[in-house]
């Protein structure tokens, strides 16, 4: 076997694989009389794209795919991300030609299937959340949030209430909450958590005045805890004229358990890619519909899907687009993440029905509590009470300097994806664990066993943990080099080096 290297070699870039003259696709010859291109100074000189045959492309991407960990390969307990199993049927339904090959500006008579699906989705999400109306337009959770905050602003403005500039946000909140409020120039007031992980009611009371736009609350919060005073929190905010924003990131814990609209929330975004099993796609696309209470219905983004003509004996209903009276405008071109987001979610809800949705929440909560019970004696769980779909523990081992980051990296050696690290900010060395309902008891048992074993390793052989991972194809990264040298592209534009 001499001469054959068996060490791992990283995959070249697509540009390095290029060889002049290869091609992966050919197109038919033109069947129309030839026509000259416009004059040269409107044309480009070169087109520096790679040249590969189809088999080169396939092998390249297969090689890259093997570098990824994914839900299909194993347990992925990333807190607040709801990395549940993505049913395969959804991949087929969203690719039906009737969906793939419809243009967003086709006459509505030719896309009644799409519009019916969107209308029913609005209705189903409304029913699940207890809101008065739902827009499907926002492209992702963060955009849904921005949509919500824009509507809150528009609501106060329409009432001539100009002095409201303060957004109340708990210290455990996702970064997107303050960023969304910041995009509209609002002042963010951080509300601390109390000893049981609830919103501190005393501080909240003191902040509730006539300058409050509203409150952005994630419930269950990022500690995985359901706020025990939720009704008082909502009342305080509403009594001072504020609106309640619900961050729907953690809706997986609430399906069939409670409807945010029933408790008095005014607006909430859904993350279809979390709660309703739309795959995360390595970072997107997501889909972030928004539900609102009566107070905000007129401010929804345009357009919504409505019934233009009621059905009668001969004709089904005619669905089409409608524009709310005081709409904040359009959030993106066309109608939202229809194919990737809505068709998959529609399939998922249709297959679950009301009881199936409740099962999702119940088993997601059972799995989180079961894992917490297995780990409680080894790792400290602050705010330790019955949690919802996730819990946060401290990634520390007493008497060692092993950190949450080290434990996370070591988990990779045991073939698990690490939990979310260092979030929420209010827990030291936080490890936020969300198992979801689609994991079995054996997986949870082995994951807990691995974490318990790592705690022992941290005491006996801390270096082993601090230099992990050891068995993955890649080791820890030099992030300082990446940020300082800033190589963001694998080819250099002409004359670039001279600069």
């Amino acid at each position: 076997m001499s001469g054959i290297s068996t060490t791992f070699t990283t995959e070249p870039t697509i540009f390095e694989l290029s060889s002049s003259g290869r091609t992966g696709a050919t197109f038919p010859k033109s069947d129309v009389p030839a026509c000259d291109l416009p004059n040269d100074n409107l044309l480009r000189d070169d087109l520096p794209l790679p040249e590969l045959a189809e088999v080169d492309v396939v092998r390249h991407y297969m090689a890259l795919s093997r570098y990824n960990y994914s839900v299909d390969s194993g347990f992925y307990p990333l807190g607040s991300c709801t990395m549940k199993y993505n049913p395969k049927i959804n991949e087929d339904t969203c690719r039906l030609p009737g969906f793939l090959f419809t243009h967003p500006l086709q006459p509505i008579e030719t896309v009644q299937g799409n519009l019916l699906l969107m209308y029913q989705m609005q209705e189903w999400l409304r029913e699940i959340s207890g809101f008065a109306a739902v827009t499907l337009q926002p492209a992702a959770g963060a955009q849904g949030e921005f949509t919500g905050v824009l509507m809150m602003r528009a609501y106060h403005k329409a009432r001539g209430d100009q002095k409201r500039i303060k957004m109340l946000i708990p210290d455990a909140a996702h970064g997107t909450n303050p960023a969304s409020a910041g995009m509209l120039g609002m002042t963010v007031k951080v509300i601390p958590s109390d000893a049981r992980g609830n919103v501190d009611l005393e501080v909240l009371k003191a902040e509730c005045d006539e300058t409050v736009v509203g409150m952005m609350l994630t419930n269950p919060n990022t500690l995985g805890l359901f706020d025990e005073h939720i009704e008082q929190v909502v009342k305080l905010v509403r009594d001072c004229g504020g609106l309640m924003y619900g961050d729907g990131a953690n809706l997986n814990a609430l399906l069939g358990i409670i409807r945010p609209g029933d408790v008095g929330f005014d607006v909430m975004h859904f993350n279809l890619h979390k709660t309703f099993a739309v795959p995360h796609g390595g970072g997107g696309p997501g889909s972030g519909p928004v539900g609102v209470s009566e107070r905000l219905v007129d401010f929804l983004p345009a357009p919504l899907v409505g019934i233009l003509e009621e059905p009668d004996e001969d004709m089904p209903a005619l669905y089409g687009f409608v524009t709310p009276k005081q709409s904040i405008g359009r959030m993106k071109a066309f109608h939202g993440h229809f194919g990737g987001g809505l068709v998959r979610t529609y399939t998922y809800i249709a297959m679950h029905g009301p009881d199936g949705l409740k099962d999702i929440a119940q088993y997601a909560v059972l799995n989180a509590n079961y894992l917490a019970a297995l780990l409680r004696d080894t790792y400290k769980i602050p705010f330790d009470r019955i949690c919802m779909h996730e819990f946060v523990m401290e990634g520390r081992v007493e008497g060692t300097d092993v950190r949450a980051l080290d434990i996370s990296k070591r988990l990779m050696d045991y073939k698990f994806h690490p939990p979310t690290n260092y979030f929420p900010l209010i827990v030291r060395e936080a490890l936020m664990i969300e198992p979801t309902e689609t994991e079995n008891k054996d997986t949870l048992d082995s994951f807990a066993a691995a974490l318990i074993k790592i705690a022992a390793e941290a005491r006996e052989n801390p270096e082993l943990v601090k230099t992990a991972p050891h068995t993955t194809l890649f080791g820890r990264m030099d992030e300082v080099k990446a940020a300082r040298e800033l190589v963001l592209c694998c080819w250099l534009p002409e004359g670039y080096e001279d600069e």
Partner: protein
Amino acid sequence: MTYIPISPKERDAMLEKVGVQSLDALFEAVPAKHRFPKLNLPAALTEMEAASLLDEIALSNENVRADLVSFLGAGMYHHYIPSVVDHVLRRGEFYTAYTPYQPEISQGTLQGIFEYQSLMTALTGMEVSNASHYDGATAAAEAVNLAFANFRGKRRKVLVSASVHPQYREVIRTYTQGMDLTVSGDGADADLQASPEALTPLIDQDTAVVLVQYPDFFGRVFDYTKLIETAHAQGALVCVIANPTALALFKTPGAMDADIVVGEGQPLGLPMWFGGPSLGFFTTRKAYVHKMAGRLVGETVDSRGQRAYVLTLTAREQHIKREKATSNICSNQGLLALASAVYLSTVGQTGFKQVANLCYQKAHYAAAELSKIEGVGLCFGQPFFHEFAVCLPKPVAEVNARLLEHGILGGYDLGQDYPSLKDHLLVAVTEMNTKDEIDLFVELLREVLS
């Protein structure tokens, strides 16, 4: 049907370990009067039933592959997608992974994005690309955010050409409604026949950014070099909203000295999917990289000295900067960025030029044939790519309705957005349209108008 892999026996053992009697007992923190609402939803379907329900819904649409011949574009285009693209996307390793926060086990996604960034800079002639935005319209709005942040809010005027996609202009207005700036340049009085230099007198020291489209909404190809030079003389930035297929043939906005180039990536191997999800690409100069929103992948080495990739400059983003962040974006169109990279790698420079050339040839043939019809004329005289406006002697809605009876989507009614272009039809032609289809379209239109 659910996907829960826990047997009743296992469930009971787990409940015992947790120390509660039943699943319902886990929810005592939830206010009793709102607990366990009855959801009025249809009963659960099996996979077999769901598949047939979705089949039925999809079949009740008329699609442009089987049922209709389309000349409709206006921001989304029917192009051929090589089979290999979806085969790659169907790998669970790609589509069921999360954002690559753990680079040791996410190099597939990271290298994929790095290559996507490289391909986008190659296409636009720019220096850096982020990992993508939601779509072309939101990418354009993010360009305004970049410019506003670049001047620290001191320049408060945004100029947008009237020949930028109407929905993009709406989105820019939605995004900026809470910001202390004005958006202008696209009023009803804007001269649509004029060259881009018409915006020149409006550019001043208070202008943060000028946005133009390339080819513009009417399909016209302008060289923006002079306009950009003027804007730069006033210290303003210029954002060019580009169609990526056109960039296979035409001078890059980078070569015109644009500061930001964004656009809709759907033509790069993505289905139209009734409007989304699609892909907003965003490229700029290295000087603005810290002001650019969105994810960014950079090259580095790992602890074993291997070349590898990581998310970089993350301190710009919302999870660290919180209310001080330029944007709240925390995703990218990961899988679709991957799709566009697979598409561009597969068609390569030869195939991509071929696609663009076919679009150009067929559109020009269609334009020539259509303008032979009595009463039909090309609306603009400038060079165009694969889309063009024609004036009709009858209302577009009426004409389109008649064409639809014959299975033809005639194009976009420009009068909806531009009162001065009443009875004007925007026609798009791509490599998917055969000569026979174009001839049929011309013949039917002649019939409808006679």
